[in-house]
Protein backbone atom coordinates (compact mmCIF):
# COMPACT_ATOMS: atom_id res chain seq x y z
CA UNK A 1 0.00 0.00 0.00
CA UNK A 2 2.68 2.50 1.02
CA UNK A 3 4.81 1.32 -1.88
CA UNK A 4 2.00 2.06 -4.31
CA UNK A 5 1.57 5.47 -2.78
CA UNK A 6 5.29 6.16 -2.99
CA UNK A 7 5.44 5.08 -6.62
CA UNK A 8 2.56 7.36 -7.56
CA UNK A 9 3.70 10.33 -5.51
CA UNK A 10 6.21 11.20 -8.24
CA UNK A 11 4.42 13.49 -10.73
CA UNK A 12 5.86 11.88 -13.88
CA UNK A 13 4.89 8.41 -12.71
CA UNK A 14 1.40 9.60 -11.92
CA UNK A 15 1.15 10.95 -15.47
CA UNK A 16 2.36 7.62 -16.86
CA UNK A 17 -0.36 5.87 -14.87
CA UNK A 18 -2.93 8.31 -16.21
CA UNK A 19 -1.82 7.65 -19.79
CA UNK A 20 -1.91 3.88 -19.24
CA UNK A 21 -5.39 4.29 -17.78
CA UNK A 22 -6.60 5.11 -21.29
CA UNK A 23 -5.12 1.93 -22.81
CA UNK A 24 -1.96 -0.20 -22.70
CA UNK A 25 1.00 1.35 -24.50
CA UNK A 26 4.61 0.74 -25.50
CA UNK A 27 7.49 2.73 -24.01
CA UNK A 28 7.73 4.69 -27.25
CA UNK A 29 4.08 5.68 -27.10
CA UNK A 30 4.42 6.74 -23.47
CA UNK A 31 7.47 8.86 -24.37
CA UNK A 32 5.61 10.54 -27.22
CA UNK A 33 2.52 11.17 -25.17
CA UNK A 34 4.39 12.76 -22.26
CA UNK A 35 7.40 14.18 -24.12
CA UNK A 36 9.77 12.03 -22.09
CA UNK A 37 13.17 10.65 -22.95
CA UNK A 38 13.34 6.86 -23.21
CA UNK A 39 15.81 6.41 -20.32
CA UNK A 40 13.63 8.54 -18.06
CA UNK A 41 10.47 6.66 -19.01
CA UNK A 42 12.19 3.31 -18.52
CA UNK A 43 13.40 4.33 -15.10
CA UNK A 44 9.89 5.27 -13.97
CA UNK A 45 8.34 2.18 -15.56
CA UNK A 46 10.79 0.04 -13.64
CA UNK A 47 9.60 1.54 -10.35
CA UNK A 48 5.98 1.08 -11.37
CA UNK A 49 6.65 -2.55 -12.26
CA UNK A 50 8.50 -3.27 -9.04
CA UNK A 51 5.56 -1.98 -7.02
CA UNK A 52 3.12 -3.95 -9.14
CA UNK A 53 1.25 -0.93 -10.45
CA UNK A 54 1.99 -1.85 -14.07
CA UNK A 55 2.82 -5.08 -15.85
CA UNK A 56 4.59 -5.67 -19.12
CA UNK A 57 3.87 -8.07 -21.94
CA UNK A 58 6.06 -8.79 -24.96
CA UNK A 59 4.09 -8.44 -28.17
CA UNK A 60 5.67 -8.73 -31.60
CA UNK A 61 9.04 -7.56 -30.23
CA UNK A 62 7.47 -4.63 -28.46
CA UNK A 63 7.00 -4.40 -24.74
CA UNK A 64 3.48 -3.28 -23.94
CA UNK A 65 2.80 -1.78 -20.53
CA UNK A 66 -0.59 -1.89 -18.86
CA UNK A 67 -2.05 -1.12 -15.45
CA UNK A 68 -2.73 -3.79 -12.88
CA UNK A 69 -6.02 -3.22 -11.11
CA UNK A 70 -5.26 -4.72 -7.69
CA UNK A 71 -2.92 -2.09 -6.20
CA UNK A 72 -5.07 0.71 -7.57
CA UNK A 73 -8.19 -0.82 -6.03
CA UNK A 74 -6.36 -0.94 -2.73
CA UNK A 75 -5.45 2.69 -3.20
CA UNK A 76 -9.03 3.53 -3.98
CA UNK A 77 -10.09 1.98 -0.69
CA UNK A 78 -7.55 4.23 0.98
CA UNK A 79 -8.97 7.24 -0.83
CA UNK A 80 -12.42 6.31 0.41
CA UNK A 81 -11.05 6.40 3.92
CA UNK A 82 -9.82 9.93 3.32
CA UNK A 83 -13.18 11.05 2.09
CA UNK A 84 -14.73 9.57 5.14
CA UNK A 85 -12.40 11.65 7.30
CA UNK A 86 -14.09 14.76 5.92
CA UNK A 87 -17.54 13.27 6.21
CA UNK A 88 -16.86 12.38 9.85
CA UNK A 89 -15.38 15.80 10.48
CA UNK A 90 -18.53 17.47 9.21
CA UNK A 91 -20.67 15.02 11.20
CA UNK A 92 -18.92 16.37 14.29
CA UNK A 93 -19.47 19.93 13.07
CA UNK A 94 -23.15 19.01 12.75
CA UNK A 95 -23.18 17.89 16.40
CA UNK A 96 -21.52 21.12 17.49
CA UNK A 97 -24.13 23.09 15.56
CA UNK A 98 -26.95 21.12 17.17
CA UNK A 99 -25.37 21.85 20.56
CA UNK A 100 -25.28 25.57 19.87
CA UNK A 101 -28.94 25.48 18.80
CA UNK A 102 -29.98 23.69 22.00
CA UNK A 103 -28.00 26.13 24.09
CA UNK A 104 -29.75 29.05 22.41
CA UNK A 105 -33.16 27.48 22.91
CA UNK A 106 -32.44 27.03 26.59
CA UNK A 107 -30.87 30.38 27.36
CA UNK A 108 -31.83 32.57 24.45
CA UNK A 109 -29.32 33.93 22.02
CA UNK A 110 -26.18 34.98 23.84
CA UNK A 111 -24.60 38.26 23.11
CA UNK A 112 -21.68 37.71 20.79
CA UNK A 113 -18.30 38.85 21.82
Amino acid at each position, binding site marked *: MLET*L*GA*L*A*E*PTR*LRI*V*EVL*GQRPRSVGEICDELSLGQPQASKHLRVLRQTGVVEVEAKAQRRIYS*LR*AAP*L*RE*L*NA*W*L*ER*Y*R*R*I*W*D*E*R*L*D*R*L*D*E*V*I*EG*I*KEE*ENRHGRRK*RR
Partner: protein
Amino acid sequence: MAAGREGETTGRTSMERTSDTELVMTRTFRAPARIVFDAYTRPEHVKRWWAPASRGIALVQCEADVRAGGTYRYVLGSGGEVVAAFSGSYLEVEPPTRLVYTQVFEAFPGAEAVVTVSFEEKGGMTTLVAHERYPSKEALDGAVAAGMEEGARESFEQLDRLVTSLRG
Protein backbone atom coordinates in the same frame (compact mmCIF):
# COMPACT_ATOMS: atom_id res chain seq x y z
CA MET B 1 -22.92 2.09 -13.49
CA ALA B 2 -20.31 4.10 -11.70
CA ALA B 3 -18.39 5.26 -14.75
CA GLY B 4 -18.13 9.00 -15.05
CA ARG B 5 -19.07 9.52 -11.45
CA GLU B 6 -17.49 12.65 -10.05
CA GLY B 7 -19.10 13.26 -6.69
CA GLU B 8 -18.98 11.04 -3.66
CA THR B 9 -22.21 9.84 -2.17
CA THR B 10 -20.93 8.09 0.96
CA GLY B 11 -22.25 9.95 3.96
CA ARG B 12 -23.78 13.37 3.67
CA THR B 13 -20.77 15.21 2.36
CA SER B 14 -20.43 15.51 -1.36
CA MET B 15 -16.96 15.92 -2.78
CA GLU B 16 -16.06 16.81 -6.29
CA ARG B 17 -12.77 17.42 -7.99
CA THR B 18 -13.55 20.20 -10.42
CA SER B 19 -10.09 20.48 -12.00
CA ASP B 20 -6.51 19.31 -11.50
CA THR B 21 -6.09 21.87 -8.76
CA GLU B 22 -9.56 22.34 -7.28
CA LEU B 23 -11.82 20.47 -4.94
CA VAL B 24 -15.33 21.36 -3.83
CA MET B 25 -17.04 19.96 -0.75
CA THR B 26 -20.70 20.52 0.02
CA ARG B 27 -22.74 19.81 3.12
CA THR B 28 -26.09 21.06 4.42
CA PHE B 29 -26.81 21.71 8.09
CA ARG B 30 -30.12 22.22 9.89
CA ALA B 31 -29.28 25.62 11.31
CA PRO B 32 -29.15 29.26 10.31
CA ALA B 33 -25.99 30.52 8.63
CA ARG B 34 -24.83 32.58 11.62
CA ILE B 35 -24.58 29.39 13.74
CA VAL B 36 -22.83 27.40 11.02
CA PHE B 37 -20.41 30.27 10.43
CA ASP B 38 -19.58 30.48 14.14
CA ALA B 39 -19.18 26.73 14.49
CA TYR B 40 -16.87 26.71 11.48
CA THR B 41 -14.64 29.56 12.62
CA ARG B 42 -14.58 30.08 16.38
CA PRO B 43 -11.78 28.14 18.13
CA GLU B 44 -13.94 27.00 21.06
CA HIS B 45 -16.17 25.23 18.51
CA VAL B 46 -13.45 24.19 16.03
CA LYS B 47 -11.66 22.30 18.84
CA ARG B 48 -14.66 20.01 19.05
CA TRP B 49 -14.93 18.93 15.43
CA TRP B 50 -11.80 19.50 13.35
CA ALA B 51 -9.53 16.72 14.64
CA PRO B 52 -10.27 13.05 13.87
CA ALA B 53 -10.71 12.15 17.53
CA SER B 54 -11.75 8.57 16.71
CA ARG B 55 -8.23 8.03 15.36
CA GLY B 56 -6.64 9.29 18.54
CA ILE B 57 -5.71 12.64 17.03
CA ALA B 58 -6.58 15.85 18.84
CA LEU B 59 -6.44 19.51 18.00
CA VAL B 60 -3.81 20.46 20.56
CA GLN B 61 -3.57 24.06 19.51
CA CYS B 62 -6.24 26.16 17.85
CA GLU B 63 -5.83 29.88 17.42
CA ALA B 64 -7.87 31.99 15.05
CA ASP B 65 -8.11 35.73 14.64
CA VAL B 66 -11.13 35.69 12.36
CA ARG B 67 -10.99 38.97 10.48
CA ALA B 68 -9.54 40.05 7.16
CA GLY B 69 -5.77 40.06 7.59
CA GLY B 70 -5.98 37.94 10.74
CA THR B 71 -4.22 34.57 11.00
CA TYR B 72 -4.98 31.11 12.31
CA ARG B 73 -3.02 28.03 13.26
CA TYR B 74 -4.38 24.54 13.91
CA VAL B 75 -1.99 21.93 15.34
CA LEU B 76 -2.89 18.24 15.38
CA GLY B 77 -1.27 16.02 17.95
CA SER B 78 -1.32 12.42 19.11
CA GLY B 79 0.24 10.93 22.23
CA GLY B 80 2.05 14.16 23.07
CA GLU B 81 3.56 14.49 19.61
CA VAL B 82 2.71 16.97 16.90
CA VAL B 83 1.27 15.16 13.88
CA ALA B 84 0.67 18.09 11.56
CA ALA B 85 0.17 21.82 11.61
CA PHE B 86 -1.98 23.93 9.32
CA SER B 87 -1.98 27.70 9.21
CA GLY B 88 -2.91 30.63 7.07
CA SER B 89 -4.51 34.03 6.98
CA TYR B 90 -8.01 35.30 6.35
CA LEU B 91 -8.44 37.18 3.07
CA GLU B 92 -12.17 37.92 3.37
CA VAL B 93 -14.42 37.56 6.38
CA GLU B 94 -18.07 38.38 5.82
CA PRO B 95 -20.15 36.70 8.52
CA PRO B 96 -22.31 34.79 8.09
CA THR B 97 -22.14 34.26 4.33
CA ARG B 98 -18.57 34.13 3.12
CA LEU B 99 -15.06 33.29 4.24
CA VAL B 100 -11.84 33.21 2.20
CA TYR B 101 -8.55 32.06 3.70
CA THR B 102 -5.19 30.65 2.76
CA GLN B 103 -4.21 27.21 3.98
CA VAL B 104 -0.67 25.93 4.33
CA PHE B 105 0.36 22.51 5.48
CA GLU B 106 3.47 23.68 7.30
CA ALA B 107 5.62 20.78 6.14
CA PHE B 108 5.11 22.07 2.57
CA PRO B 109 5.11 25.85 2.78
CA GLY B 110 5.26 26.21 -1.00
CA ALA B 111 1.87 24.63 -1.59
CA GLU B 112 -0.48 27.26 -0.28
CA ALA B 113 -4.14 26.65 -1.04
CA VAL B 114 -6.87 29.26 -1.10
CA VAL B 115 -10.14 28.11 0.46
CA THR B 116 -13.39 29.92 -0.28
CA VAL B 117 -16.31 28.94 1.93
CA SER B 118 -19.84 30.11 1.30
CA PHE B 119 -22.75 29.68 3.71
CA GLU B 120 -26.10 29.82 1.96
CA GLU B 121 -29.17 29.90 4.15
CA LYS B 122 -32.53 28.79 2.86
CA GLY B 123 -35.62 27.88 4.88
CA GLY B 124 -33.67 27.52 8.11
CA MET B 125 -31.06 25.25 6.50
CA THR B 126 -27.55 26.28 5.58
CA THR B 127 -25.50 24.80 2.77
CA LEU B 128 -21.77 25.06 3.30
CA VAL B 129 -19.68 24.94 0.14
CA ALA B 130 -15.90 24.80 0.61
CA HIS B 131 -13.86 25.36 -2.52
CA GLU B 132 -10.13 24.59 -2.24
CA ARG B 133 -7.73 25.79 -4.90
CA TYR B 134 -4.06 24.79 -5.03
CA PRO B 135 -1.41 26.74 -6.97
CA SER B 136 -0.70 23.82 -9.29
CA LYS B 137 -1.32 20.15 -9.85
CA GLU B 138 2.32 19.65 -8.81
CA ALA B 139 1.58 21.35 -5.50
CA LEU B 140 -0.98 18.65 -4.85
CA ASP B 141 1.27 15.85 -6.04
CA GLY B 142 4.17 17.14 -3.97
CA ALA B 143 2.00 17.31 -0.91
CA VAL B 144 0.97 13.71 -1.45
CA ALA B 145 4.58 12.56 -1.34
CA ALA B 146 4.64 12.85 2.42
CA GLY B 147 1.07 11.73 2.91
CA MET B 148 -0.33 15.14 3.58
CA GLU B 149 -3.89 14.58 4.59
CA GLU B 150 -5.50 17.47 2.78
CA GLY B 151 -3.50 17.13 -0.41
CA ALA B 152 -3.50 13.37 -0.75
CA ARG B 153 -7.24 13.13 -0.67
CA GLU B 154 -7.51 15.50 -3.57
CA SER B 155 -4.68 14.28 -5.73
CA PHE B 156 -6.02 10.77 -5.69
CA GLU B 157 -9.43 11.85 -6.84
CA GLN B 158 -8.15 11.44 -10.36
CA LEU B 159 -7.04 7.91 -9.60
CA ASP B 160 -10.53 7.18 -8.43
CA ARG B 161 -11.79 7.72 -11.95
CA LEU B 162 -9.02 5.53 -13.26
CA VAL B 163 -9.86 2.75 -10.87
CA THR B 164 -13.50 3.01 -11.79
CA SER B 165 -12.54 2.43 -15.40
CA LEU B 166 -10.56 -0.65 -14.40
CA ARG B 167 -13.43 -2.22 -12.52
CA GLY B 168 -15.28 -3.29 -15.61
